């Protein structure tokens, strides 16, 4: 199909447009790419003023850590494989194999499997390649300086995995609870045209705009004193909610509810009401209709909403920093411990390595779920 001649663009305009696009992609990716490079270099190289030194890493290479040509080929191949599998392979696999109604489990399983694969590859390929390089002789000489010592320092020596486990607990808790509660509410709101439903949505909209620090100011005194407050009801076993992951989960779920119910409501409105009406005619109650008819077809919306819940919980700084103890932090607040210390450049590069570790899972997530993220962003807007 050819474009009408009048709509065709001049060469200059097309070049400007393409040039701008390239410029934007560089701008978007460069800071992230750069910290990823920095995290693999020794401190002198990582903070070198000359960009080439940061890329090639002469100091790192001098210490005997580096990538040879075969290493680079294997690395590029591995990156391409991960991209291929997550952007193309996984969706195709799920479309072909997953039984209807269980796709969501396959998606989650697939992401976890890819993540584990990357971690295992990160741990096993370097020793193997060291052997290969030794056997190759001159060809196996390091060409680019690269070291994983900062990752080892962060994850093994500084026990960053504890923060990771905390993050994991909180994100999994937030996503499951907020989806369970949110789908019910979203369905109810989508199927009820009453004024009450409208006002509830408006109140949710107002709640969405509240700064989180305002809410946390409301929780803090209660959470710190909760043992005394709850004692008359619960007796001796009354917990101090401050510092408890369960309290943070409850807070994040609630903060996230307004957004979740708005989004799920717009997804449910796209599912024709005739579907559950038919089930009702056949003698189902509202809940049975929801379980048997709606649940099997609602997964695309639930996955998208779940992604945004995940991002909120995973990226949160404010709530976790204020409601958890400094010793028991999630990953994002824990990283401030590194860059506030920043006494030596080694500390700084360790902070960079920790930062890259935190965003690596998000990277994977965008690769696999790009379509869902885009549809989620537009669903709210186009519907109004």
């Amino acid at each position: 199909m050819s474009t009408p001649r009048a709509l065709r663009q001049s060469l200059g305009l097309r070049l400007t447009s393409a040039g701008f696009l390239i410029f934007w992609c560089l701008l978007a990716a460069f800071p992230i790419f750069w910290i990823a490079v920095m995290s693999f270099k020794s401190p002198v190289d990582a903070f070198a003023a000359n960009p080439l030194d940061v890329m090639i890493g002469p100091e790192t290479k001098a210490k005997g850590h580096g990538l040879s040509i075969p290493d680079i080929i294997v690395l590029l191949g591995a990156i391409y494989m991960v991209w291929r599998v997550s952007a193309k392979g996984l969706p195709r696999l799920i479309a072909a194999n997953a039984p209807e109604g269980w796709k969501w489990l396959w998606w989650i399983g697939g992401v976890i499997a890819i993540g584990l694969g990357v971690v295992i590859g990160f741990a096993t390929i370097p020793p193997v390649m060291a052997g290969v390089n030794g056997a190759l002789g001159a060809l196996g000489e390091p060409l680019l300086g690269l070291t994983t010592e900062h990752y080892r320092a962060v994850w093994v020596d500084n026990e960053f995995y504890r923060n990771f486990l905390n993050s994991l607990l909180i994100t999994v808790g937030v996503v499951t609870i907020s989806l369970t509660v949110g789908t019910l509410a979203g369905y109810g709101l989508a199927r009820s045209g009453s004024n009450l439903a409208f006002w509830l949505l408006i109140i949710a909209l107002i709640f969405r705009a509240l700064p989180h620090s305002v809410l946390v100011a409301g929780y803090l005194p209660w959470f710190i004193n909760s043992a005394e407050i709850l004692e008359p009801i619960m007796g001796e076993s009354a917990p101090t909610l401050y510092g408890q992951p369960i309290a943070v989960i409850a807070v994040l779920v609630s903060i996230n509810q307004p957004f979740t119910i708005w989004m799920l409501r717009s997804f449910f409105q796209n599912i024709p009401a005739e579907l559950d009406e038919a089930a009702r005619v056949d003698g189902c109650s509202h809940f049975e209709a929801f379980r048997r008819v709606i649940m099997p077809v609602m997964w695309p919306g639930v996955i998208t909403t779940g992604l945004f819940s995940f991002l909120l919980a995973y990226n949160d700084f404010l709530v976790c920093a204020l409601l958890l103890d400094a010793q028991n932090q999630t990953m994002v607040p824990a990283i401030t411990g590194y860059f506030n210390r920043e006494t030596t450049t080694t500390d700084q590069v360790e902070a960079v390595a920790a930062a890259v570790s935190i965003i690596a899972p998000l990277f994977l997530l965008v690769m696999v779920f790009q379509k869902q993220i885009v549809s989620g962003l537009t669903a709210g807007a186009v519907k109004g």
Partner: protein
Amino acid sequence: MKFRTFAAFVGPSLLLMFLFIAAPLASVLWQSFHITKPVFETVSVETCTPGFPSQICTTEERTIPQLEDGKVVTRTDYVGWQSYRNVLEPDRAAAAIERGSWSDLMTIDFWKALRFTLTFTLITLPLAIGLGLLIALAVNNALKQVRGPVIFVSLLPFIITPVIGALSIKWLFIGDGIMTAMLERWLQQDIAMFAQGWTIEILMLFYRVWHVAPFAFVIFYAGLQSVNQDTLESAIIDGASRFERLRYVIVPHLMPLIVFVSMIHLMDAYRCFEEVIGFSSQAHRISLQFLTFDLMTPDDSGNRSISRASASAMLTMIGIALLLIPLVRKTWRDHKGSSA
């Protein structure tokens, strides 16, 4: 749907929102008028040191926190507008305004935070919308094959943890980082990006535009797919230039989306917080939400000034309320229009 079924579906969500959003709001309002302090008592303590011919004894009055069962006794008092006065410091602010000294006014945390938050919100708004629109137009113009990867790269700034996004930009400029080195070579002078406020502020503005533009882009790009081709063609027949078509056909078509993105952006930028953490700018630039956060963090002696934090939180809310009134009115009109 019967009311009871509706209530059963919506109930759990409402309960959560009531417990953790509505109730804390009421609590914050109450806290901002009350101060909880430990109760102090004055006791006279006699300390004796051995001496000759008799011991030397001194009696002194000491103020110590009153204890009961090993716990510090606290008392909560109604203090009226005291906490608000502590945050706003009206006397100092009035004096500064009288002298016409802007820099004196900016020594008061609240006014400093207010100034920063407002300029931050208003400057980033047009930049983010403009950049988002440009990217959307450029992607729409690009070949089909490159669109997927471009969208992937564009989503990155939006999706990564805000604190880390800010840090990644900070690390490019810190000390003699590569960007600073490049600027120094270009401008032939020594530059320290983190030694003064305005350079940090520029980086913070840059970060926010970088972070939000992808969101605006995705929304506008979706909107561009539904531009009416017939209208475009008739515009061409009427002799409209490319720019006029953009101005009179495409932008009006996208207008509802531009309003939507602006509202979301205003709400989010007004809550600006992660930038302050990521760029460690608290010595130079703070935002309203950071002010509340800072008051709630325990100080050196382990005290949190909850009451002042609540007052500052309530003051922050005034801005949110002003933002929301037009939004709620518009939604209400739409709702009435659609149901009539």
